[in-house]
């Protein structure tokens, strides 16, 4: 079993790839789901970022997306194993409906994350490291530099688009 200080960065990288990939596949950078998400995207663009990335960040703020799904799935697997992760997916779906979102990105992200994290638990990873990993992953997108993060997301969106 790897030491925790090695497990957490690996978990953060896996969570980052999973939630960005699911959000891009479900076209979050395309348009704001609500007015507020569009406004956040425009503001980030004004401050030197990219509109597509900013819109995706606005959407992450406004409704539980794949990043929230990954976090709650990690929490679910930590407290109750794979069934806990799937229960978290149901809760994310309900949360999406409350926020007037179709709910496909969040629920898909939560189900995929539950399976991924349960698999890594079998390999000897501790599920709590995925909670810390997901918090680090969201920090790199939403909490360090909005212009840089939005430009990176827009570049990844360019490959998909």
């Amino acid at each position, binding site marked *: 079993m790897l030491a925790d200080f090695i497990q957490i960065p690996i978990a953060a990288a896996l969570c980052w790839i999973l939630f960005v990939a699911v959000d891009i596949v479900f076209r979050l950078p395309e348009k704001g789901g609500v007015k507020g998400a569009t406004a956040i995207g425009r503001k980030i663009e004004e401050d030197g970022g990219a509109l597509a990335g900013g819109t995706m960040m606005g959407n*992450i*703020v406004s409704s539980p997306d794949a990043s*929230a799904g990954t976090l709650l799935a990690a929490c679910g697997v930590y407290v109750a194993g794979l069934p806990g992760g799937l229960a*978290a997916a149901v809760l994310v779906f309900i949360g999406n409906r409350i926020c007037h979102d179709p709910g496909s990105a969040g629920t898909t992200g939560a189900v995929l994350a539950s399976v991924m994290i349960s698999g890594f638990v079998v390999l000897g990873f501790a599920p*709590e490291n995925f909670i810390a990993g997901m*918090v680090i992953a969201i*920090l790199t997108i939403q*909490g360090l530099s909005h212009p840089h993060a939005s430009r990176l997301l827009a570049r990844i969106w360019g490959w998909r688009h």
Partner: protein
Amino acid sequence: MAALIALYVCGLIALFAAIRTVVEPEPYRKLPYLNVMNFAIAGLIVLILAHPLSILAAAAYFVGSTLEANAIASTRAAVMEND
């Protein structure tokens, strides 16, 4: 032991995000920082209360706080549009 390291990581990130939320002058750009804090707090709820039902508490907290951020941003956008 593992849970303790994850707990400190979440706690420090929550504190960092809270400080950045307060320091950031632009209202729209406060919300992504607040979002990071909400992620960290939802993680902390489960790490501190390791019980199957705490996933309900974390989900309720997270969905509620997301809905609030959504309401703040959308209300502000609607009001600015009318001006």
